[in-house]
């Protein structure tokens, strides 16, 4: 019952006029961001990092705004996937497979409204799951000391390399690059200047906003340019009947539930966000339908069950992503990693103590997820035509806009040309890394977790006067080490899993 009173308290915070307004703005901006190809949640949230400081928002208001944009873009991603067969962001790739054929059959309106509804169901289930699971997990995690923390982070990194990509070496390389960047600047323990190269600009490390905007917003522009197709504006399919009917809802209910549950559990795992969840939900649903209803299966040609489960799953996952972030301080996607980084900029240390020390922040955020999803459902069904029109914004307007907002954002931090040049250099560097197949999300996780990992490691080893054996001296730590080893070894030993991963995974979000 304690949880309920906290939740009520959270609603009090989320319903405060400023926060309600921010959630609504975030939902609208997020949907637009999701619609626009090439501008995903991670780029939008990255560009927002300096803006929340410029606006002078409180930590809870910043998180509410960023979270609304994050979950909103998962709603928006489906619009261009269904109407144009162009996924607005990575986790909408699977949406296009069933959604676009439906649009071609003149059922775009049904596909859009149905997927908005299943998105909402997925999110609602995941948010309920957060309310139930997060406080329990946080209470359990309170027992964590530096020893357990080191093991937990190694487990998170193992998940990132083992689950996420078909090239684990490149994900590991990305994590290590992030850890490397996190060591730049003055060392908090000894006062030694590390990798500052005698530049006063690097004494307190690289500005977080500079890194995330460079890595995501700037490199994305170069990727956009490379993948740009010339020619006329895309043809948008007719919407047709705007709302799904009761029979269609009943037809897809089971698929929606399955998708929501898969998304919820996948979203909790570090490193596995909406992309993995939607792929897993799609393949599961296809298998279920082929077994139970082989004649009725229209998978690949516009099966509503496929669409329903995919959309439920990716929205469920993007909400349950918040569980490890809030309870353990371990982000499970690049976007939540940026949010954690923002918390540290407010001098809030993420981790299990957050539930005790920052109840306003935690419960305000959870309550605002409920509110944000209601707003998203409310704006997504009637306004879908308006959002679809965003697709005709030309790249030559969008790109200068991104450049200007990114540059102002980075400049607002320290007002130096150094940071602007660094932003461009990181952006170009990230573009090459991405072309070489190095994923960016693990890099940002490495950067955010680097300082905490180093501090935990040094504190643990201080306790034992340098004896490394202390790292596996507690039962929780041993469990985490074993889990980390399993995550790394299972794909090597199980060819079937490896095949699934190769089928399912494109690019992490």
């Amino acid at each position, binding site marked *: 019952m304690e949880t309920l009173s906290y939740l009520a308290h959270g609603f009090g915070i989320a319903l405060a006029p400023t926060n309600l307004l921010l959630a609504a703005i975030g939902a609208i901006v997020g949907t637009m961001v999701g619609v626009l190809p090439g501008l995903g949640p991670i780029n939008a949230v990255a560009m927002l990092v300096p803006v929340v400081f410029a606006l002078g928002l409180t930590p809870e208001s910043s998180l509410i705004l960023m979270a609304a944009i994050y979950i909103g873009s998962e709603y928006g991603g489906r619009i261009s996937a269904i109407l144009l067969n162009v996924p607005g962001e990575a986790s909408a790739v699977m949406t296009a497979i069933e959604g676009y054929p439906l649009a071609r059959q003149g059922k775009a309106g049904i596909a859009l409204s149905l997927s908005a509804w299943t998105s909402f169901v997925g999110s609602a289930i995941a948010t309920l799951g957060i309310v139930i699971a997060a406080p329990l997990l946080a209470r359990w995690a309170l027992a964590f000391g530096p020893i357990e923390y080191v093991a937990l982070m190694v487990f998170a990194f193992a998940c990132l390399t083992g689950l996420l990509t078909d090239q684990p070496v490149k994900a590991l390389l990305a994590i290590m690059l992030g850890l490397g960047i996190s060591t730049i600047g003055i060392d908090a323990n000894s006062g030694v200047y590390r990798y500052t190269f005698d530049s006063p600009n690097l004494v307190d490390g690289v500005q977080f906003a500079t890194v995330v905007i460079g890595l995501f917003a700037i490199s994305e522009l170069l990727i*956009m340019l490379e993948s740009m197709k010339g020619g006329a504006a895309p043809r948008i399919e007719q919407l047709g009947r705007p709302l799904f009917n009761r029979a269609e809802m009943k037809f897809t209910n089971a698929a929606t539930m399955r998708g929501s549950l898969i998304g919820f559990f996948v979203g909790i795992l570090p490193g596995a966000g909406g992309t993995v969840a939607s792929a897993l939900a799609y393949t599961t649903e296809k298998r279920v339908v082929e077994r139970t209803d082989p004649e009725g299966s229209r998978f690949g040609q516009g099966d509503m069950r496929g669409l329903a489960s995919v959309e439920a799953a990716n929205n469920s996952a993007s909400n349950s992503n918040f569980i490890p972030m809030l309870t353990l301080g371990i982000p499970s996607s690049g976007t939540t990693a940026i949010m954690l980084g923002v918390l540290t900029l407010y001098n809030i240390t993420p981790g299990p103590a957050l539930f005790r020390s920052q109840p306003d922040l935690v419960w305000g955020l959870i309550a605002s997820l409920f509110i944000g999803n209601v707003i998203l459902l409310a704006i997504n069904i009637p306004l879908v035509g308006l959002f679809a029109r965003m697709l005709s914004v030309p790249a030559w307007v969008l790109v200068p806009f991104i450049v200007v907002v990114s540059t102002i954002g980075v400049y607002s931090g320290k007002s130096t040309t150094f940071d602007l040049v660094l932003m461009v250099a990181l952006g170009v560097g990230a573009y090459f890394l991405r072309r070489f*197949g190095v994923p960016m999300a693990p890099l940002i996780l490495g950067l955010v977790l680097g300082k905490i990992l180093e501090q935990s490691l040094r504190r643990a080893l201080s306790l034992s006067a340098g004896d490394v054996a202390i790292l596996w001296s507690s039962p929780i730590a041993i469990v985490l080490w074993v889990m980390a080893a399993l995550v790394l070894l299972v794909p090597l030993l199980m060819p079937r899993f490896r095949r699934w991963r190769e089928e399912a995974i494109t690019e992490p979000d």
Partner: protein
Amino acid sequence: MTQDRFLGLAAIALAAVMVIFGYGLQAPFAYEPVGPRAFPLMAAAAIAVCGIILVLKPGEANTEEGSGISRPILILSGCLLAYALLFQPLGFVLSTTVLMVPIAMVFGASWWQGLITGAALAISSYLLFDKLLDVILPVGPFGGFI
């Protein structure tokens, strides 16, 4: 040489730089057994190991994408760098209006479409950020708006 081999070599080079500049990092007085250099050196070692794996066991070459750097990519990178360098000396409004023209043109705009986009963005963001949100943007060479 495949892309992966190149990436591997770059990783090894970066690890070498990290070791060269990280090896001498030592605290004048040690309060703890680990010290400031262990963690960066560990990261460098892991980067080197990744690099060696990539050099010895590169994945299949990615044939669908061209291996060279296209001209538009160079132009866009150059414009972004120029914008970063001129942002302070030229001031926000001027640098934005001027440099958004080639950036918009790389993405298919004509020169006047680019100019309108640049000028509109410059003025509207100046009013929004500098006047409304109190983000101080650099003033121009003539000391004011321009």
